[in-house]
């Protein structure tokens, strides 16, 4: 399974990947440090699931999400963000995200995401 992780924090990516590997040790993981690079990986690799941060330099998560959904309306994008405002959640869901999970993502939250989108 191909998974794309888009976050400007290297350690946020590391933490998420470590949690993901607990359930999907063989996942092929692509990392991007901003939305623009994330969209390029998305076009090239067609990942089954995308974990996307919102607050990033160069291109934020909202813009990246919009572009990913334009490229593939069925894309399985999970927004993982510190922004836990209900309006932020409503906005990303209206843009086409499948789920929004508050940071930091732990084993329990990861399992819930995978059960909903993968297993």
């Amino acid at each position: 399974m191909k998974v794309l992780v888009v976050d400007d924090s290297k350690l946020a990516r590391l933490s998420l990947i470590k949690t993901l590997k607990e359930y999907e040790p063989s996942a092929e993981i692509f990392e991007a440090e901003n939305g623009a690079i994330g969209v390029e990986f998305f076009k090239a690799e067609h990942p089954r699931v995308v974990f996307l941060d919102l607050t990033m330099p160069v291109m934020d998560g909202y813009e990246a999400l919009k572009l990913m959904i334009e490229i593939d309306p069925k894309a399985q994008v999970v927004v993982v963000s510190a922004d836990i405002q209900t309006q932020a959640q409503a906005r990303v869901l209206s843009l086409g995200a499948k789920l929004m999970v508050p940071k930091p993502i732990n084993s329990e939250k990861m399992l819930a995401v995978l059960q909903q989108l993968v297993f």
Partner: protein
Amino acid sequence: MQASEFSDDHLDILKELMNIAMGNATASIADLLQAFGTMHIPYISVSDLNGLKSFIEETIPNDRQYYVTKQLFGGMFGGEFIFVMTDESAVNLGNYLYDISKPERADILDAVVELTNILSATIVSRLTEELNTKVQFFVPSTELVEGNNLIGLAEILDYHKIIIVSTQMVFQTQNISGYIFILTKGEMIERLRHLIDQKLEELYA
């Protein structure tokens, strides 16, 4: 590496934890204002007083007045939380919270302190929770300061080696925004580095 030096990993994790803390704080203030706030990418830097002066000069326009609220916190990690808000934003906040067109100075002060209390408690508590420690808060104080005197505040001048953690909170529709600084120094910088090292060990284990 010197005891007080931070690697890129230290700064990255501090930025990420601040991001999480800021997310919680923005949501709390959004509830208070019944509005949607914009989060900014936190700026993290290890600096000295000159670096702090330059940063403030570049970030905050000096041609207006600001409500500056300062709150000390201490424990395994300690420092000072500073919230800087333009006079205009503070009036808008008082206006919005009290639902009156011309709030009294006391009402504005009360609104600014209330907002700062929520911000500092949420941000610092969340930050320290992620670092597996706890802190105690001291009573905050607020004063109205000219922009060109922001860096002349006696408490700020007391900082030599400083970690600047800075971000901005913006509620555009209500025209309310503010600058947030967390300053820490001396032994506390070393303690913070130790707490981040523990977090890094957890991640790399």
